[in-house]
């Protein structure tokens, strides 16, 4: 089957709109960014957006899903380089630091987002928790870390990271929270769970 030039162009425009929307959402947040802002930044007419995405919500979900695939793929790649809990958490921090602005918006605004967007966030967390759980079960069995229910282990880590991210202006105004505090949070968390 050959793909027509028209289809190729359509796919390219769609990818470009997702990339531009990603940058706009990262900078301004999900609630404030208007589709007209995205169209302007992408250099297309406002109508072009709706030729590709039926509603603003569809665009929003497409952007978050694309982001989710990226994070899950990167996490898989990084976590496979090592196997310890520390290495998985380091990989998590590294993966998130690369996309911190967007992730921070997602965390801060998640309860206001439509359910499709929220389930994309759950999918991201599931991709992380599978790696952490595998590593943690091994280290618990080997007596290296304390026997803690897996959901509490995961939620304690996520809670810590998300608290810093959602209060970024207090912890690291104008700079990366994860670059500044990531190593300290990692050491602290590992010290809490180590036997």
């Amino acid at each position, binding site marked *: 089957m050959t793909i027509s030039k028209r289809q190729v162009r359509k796919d390219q425009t769609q990818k470009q709109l997702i990339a531009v929307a990603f940058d706009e959402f990262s900078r301004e947040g999900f609630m404030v960014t208007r589709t007209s802002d995205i169209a302007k930044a992408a250099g297309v007419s406002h109508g072009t957006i709706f030729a590709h995405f039926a509603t603003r919500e569809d665009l929003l979900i497409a952007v978050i*899903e694309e982001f989710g695939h990226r994070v899950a793929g990167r996490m898989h790649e990084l976590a*496979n380089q090592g196997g310890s809990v520390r290495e998985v958490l380091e990989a998590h921090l590294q993966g998130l630091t690369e996309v911190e602005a967007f992730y921070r918006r997602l965390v801060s605004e998640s309860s206001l987002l439509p359910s*499709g967007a929220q389930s994309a966030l*759950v*999918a991201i*967390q*599931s991709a992380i928790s599978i790696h952490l759980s595998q590593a943690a079960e091994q280290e618990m069995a080997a007596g290296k870390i304390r026997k803690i229910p897996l*959901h509490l282990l*995961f939620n304690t880590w996520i809670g810590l990271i998300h608290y810093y991210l959602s209060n970024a202006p207090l912890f690291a105004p104008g700079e990366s929270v994860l670059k500044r505090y990531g190593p300290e949070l990692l050491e602290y968390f590992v010290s809490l769970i180590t036997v």
Partner: protein
Amino acid sequence: MKTCIACGMPMEKKEEFAMGDTSKDYCVFCARPDGSMQSYEEKLEGMTRFIVKTQGFDEKAAQNAAREMMAKLPAWQGR
């Protein structure tokens, strides 16, 4: 990189594929002991249990999240 059609997990290494067979489109976690792919019901139950165990969600909320995630995957289209 291939992605599991049933759960979305990226598959790189041989042992991540069902039966260690890289021609398969589904992963080791979505295979039954005999190597065939799990049914929708089996996968939904497995994913729900996994979310409850590793993220501590309410069971109903976990099942809804699992259902929404599965709805995006190629193996479960048209359901």
